[in-house]
């Protein structure tokens, strides 16, 4: 049983989800999985010693703050465009840009 490979597999799943999912909330879940993979590595390599747990607490606190920012942006973007699909949002932005070009 190797926790380095376990965290690598989790990292790979997170990156794959980050690249393939189009829903904003799923992208956020991918980021959470990547952060969990990193912290799993920290703690398991330190094998229960103080340093690994201290690093986990610091890293996870930062991750939580980042999560708050991402969720606030997600709420604002979803309310503004009426959808949480990245493809649709990009399409709307492109359409908006084209219509502004035509006006000019």
């Amino acid at each position: 049983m190797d926790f380095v490979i376990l965290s690598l597999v989790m990292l790979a799943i997170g990156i794959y989800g980050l690249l393939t999912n189009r829903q904003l909330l799923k992208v956020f879940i991918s980021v959470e999985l990547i952060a969990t993979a990193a912290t799993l590595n920290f703690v398991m390599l330190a094998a229960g010693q103080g340093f690994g747990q201290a690093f986990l607490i610091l890293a996870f606190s930062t991750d939580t703050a980042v999560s708050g920012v991402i969720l606030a942006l997600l709420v604002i973007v979803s309310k503004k465009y009426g959808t949480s699909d990245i493809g649709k949002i990009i399409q709307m932005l492109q359409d908006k840009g084209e219509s502004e070009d035509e006006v000019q």
Partner: protein
Amino acid sequence: MIFEILAVGLIISAILALFLDEVVYSVAALAGTFFFVAFIYVLNGALYAAIFQFAVGVGTLSILFLSGEMLGDKPVRKTSPKRTGVLVGIGMVLSLPAIFLSVSGSTTTTSDISIADALWNVRGLDVILQAIVILTVALGIGIVLYEKRKGGQ
């Protein structure tokens, strides 16, 4: 044996969290991921890490549940049991390398630093600065959402 079961559960729940169509079910699967990680920490003697993982995970998940309910687009089709079974199978296959392969040697180092020493004596300044940053971020998010709500009205 229990670590292998936890590894399989961890990978399966991570895959379900990403690829289930319903957002609320995805968040429930993410809760499973956090639970398995916390359980692995407990079994390795990292009790503080497990408690922190569990507490922060629950906090994040409650917000995610709310966001998922508020913002989640209703999927065109629900996830079929067949697709769920395929996802579970993929998860089991992906967890095999972690069970049977090994890259790390016996490089475990020992140190007498406890978690309290590590947090307050070695990284004390980091902890205080990080607390200030997190409080600032929380205040900023509150202000942004308040302004957004006021602007919407």
